[in-house]
């Protein structure tokens, strides 16, 4: 773990913290009011605000988690050098793809 990766992981954690709280608050709100899936989609689809909210979250999570998994894989399986970096990039890109796909599905019209 070098200083760049460390700072990137901490900064993405700072971004994720308020977004996670916001996400939980929205979940509680939606459950309390008994919103149906179609009612939720009615609010999120076409909304640039939710696209930005969850899009930012997905980007932050993908970077944060990839760095975290990189450390675990490095210590547990002794991956080093190119193998380690390639694995971390794969995790990052895979999470970006899956998360991005989910965000687009609920925010695009």
């Amino acid at each position, binding site marked *: 773990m*070098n*200083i760049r990766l460390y*700072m990137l992981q901490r900064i993405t954690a700072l971004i994720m913290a308020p977004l996670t709280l916001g996400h939980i608050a929205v979940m509680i709100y939606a459950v309390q009011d008994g919103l149906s899936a179609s009612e939720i989609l009615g609010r999120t689809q076409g909304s640039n605000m939710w696209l930005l909210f969850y899009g930012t979250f997905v980007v932050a999570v993908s970077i944060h988690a990839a760095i975290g998994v990189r450390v675990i894989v490095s*210590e547990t399986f002794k991956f080093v050098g190119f193998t380690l970096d390639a694995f971390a990039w794969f995790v990052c890109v895979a999470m970006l793809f899956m998360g991005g796909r989910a965000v687009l599905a609920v925010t695009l019209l």
Partner: protein
Amino acid sequence: MSTKQENIDVSVWRGDPHSGNYENFKVPAHESQTILDVVSWIQQNQDATLSYRYACRVGMCGSCAMMVNGIPRWTCRTHVKKVLKGKKLEVAPLRNLPVIKDLVTDMDTFFDKWISAEGLHHPSKTRLDPIEEIEPKSLGRVEINAGIECINCSICYAACDTVTNNSDYLGPAALQRAWTVYNDVKDADKQTVLNAVSGDGGCLNCHSQGSCSVHCPNDLNPMNAIAGLKRATATSFFNRKG
């Protein structure tokens, strides 16, 4: 008048860098007895070829650390009664260090990492300059006081799971030493210290599990020193970018 002599079953690791196994001994139990007493009794009465390391016997030199029932301890200050598990003891060489023979480990890596962490004084004055006055209650001096009593026993290094999993990791003792140097107003090259501790094997690898602080025989807190280095490193990162 005679009382039946009670014995302790002691399992001692015997071997060389390539192989080894535990050997069992029966050692007479005494009222006030340390682990080092037990090991010495075996070496003096049962097997003169048993190799182990000690010097001061009073907890100052840091030579006699070993794994006792799986936990790193200073054996000269560890009473048998406090660590006995059903009249049994298991004594092994320190974890995370290569074995030379029996209970003796090669501590080169441990000390080399002190140098790699720049745990060295970088002079800011010559011998012709007057001695700088240090306020004992100044923040930096208080931080230094908290870490300066390290006896280099390597117990924190043996206790650290990050060292186990990442052989490049500098370890708690070296990083704590670097933190004391970083806080020294007489040190002229703090950025060199930060560069040394923020590399691939540096303080940023610490998972804050705290085994170093739990097992330090002198009640020091290397985890706190490492947290300080992380803060200083992060601050330095932004300052350099700015």
